[in-house]
């Protein structure tokens, strides 16, 4: 599974971090970082993260 965040859309809401804390994280300044090739066992939480992104900036491939 590949995770792609369109950083031109991302506005640092952090909802993905709450849904999938193993894949997404926020630094203290509120900027997003993420794992681009998470294990397939995390698929459900990554899908949840994509659903709750207010900017719909998260794409999942494979």
């Amino acid at each position, binding site marked *: 599974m590949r995770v792609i965040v369109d950083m031109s859309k991302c506005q640092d809401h952090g909802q993905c971090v709450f849904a999938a804390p193993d894949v997404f994280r926020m630094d203290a300044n*509120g900027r997003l970082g993420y794992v681009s090739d998470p294990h397939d066992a995390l698929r459900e939480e990554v*899908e949840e993260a994509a659903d709750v992104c207010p900017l719909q900036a998260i794409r999942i491939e494979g």
Partner: protein
Amino acid sequence: MSGRIVIAGASLGGLRAAEQLRAAGWAGMITVVGDEPHMPYNRPPLSKEALAGKAGFDSLAFTPKAGVADVEWRLGTAVTATRLEEGVVVLDTGAELTFDGLVIATGMRPRRLACPGPRDGRHTVRTLDDAQALRAELMRAGARLVVIGGGFIGCEVAATAVGLGAAEVTVVDPLPLPMAGPLGELLGDALLRRHTDRGVRFLLGRGVDGFQGDARAEAVVLDDGTVLAADVIVEAVGSVANTEWLDGNGLDLTDGVLTDDRLRVGGLPHVVAVGDVARHPNARYDAVARRVEHWSMPTETAKHAAKALVAQLAGAVPLPGPFAPLPTFWSDQHDFRLQSFGLPVLGRDDVRVLEGTPDGDFVAGYHRDGGLVGVVALGGAPAAVAASRYRAQLLGQPVLASHGAPR
């Protein structure tokens, strides 16, 4: 499992319901009926990025999941009636669709002012078409905007208009502070000062008596006699649930459609409601059923309701547990963001500053019976991150056991 589930409403709630029905194992037919001509699209940017021209209107469409590729979409078609026990919905074309399961996802429409004067020239902001029409008018040089309603939508539109260079932006509201209904006085006061500093004029404690103009509204008349000349008028005075089509089925439709704690409607096993039309209890707080107009609710309700509906249609036990989401919403205005977790409205009478000070970035805590029920950050991204640290505390409250019928 075969047969058909009809989803009435083709916005975010309808889309998520279709996706979650597939995720819950429903292999039968799904038909989604929606009155707008568009595939589901994201509404929050309509008062912000899209209205400002920073995001194209064509960029707002959701990308449906692969699982819903075989869903039938009947767009530009409204549901006008239903016979729930019989399993029939009636469309505005006169056609009838039979269903084994029904998802109510018809959402809200803007409330309109009934006072005298021309209707033309008065905008609302709910749909893509609404926002496109408003943007065209705001782009005229020297536009004077009057926004009626100092709630979230009204204040977002006012902020966007200032950013677009409108000559005058005035917000009118009968209440003494903007957004104080859901957020209380501390936040209302902080928001009023921020908006005023950035060029929005507020006329508060005053209602609207009518509109002046010949073919088109060109001025707003207030209840103290003030006449505000306006090139553009926006009505942002709340919303009305689209439930008329459910009349005649013995349902409680006093404010949206009442559901039980599994989002089921009317005690029927095969009918559920999702999104902001659903008035549901939240087991995290109490047994009181409330409609919640946050962007997160269609997704949360659809996930829960789809599981309950598919389980019931399959005759499976047990059902999923009671619905108990942690509500969250945000609002971007000018250069700041409001970020909320929990249900601040429950703790509006006991608001404490948790971090920062109200003249800068800060986090406010809302308490009921001394316990934290909501937090709201106002400011930049670090304030929102600070607020999010209280999520664990908000999530730590015990979820109530299943209630009987909601009050």
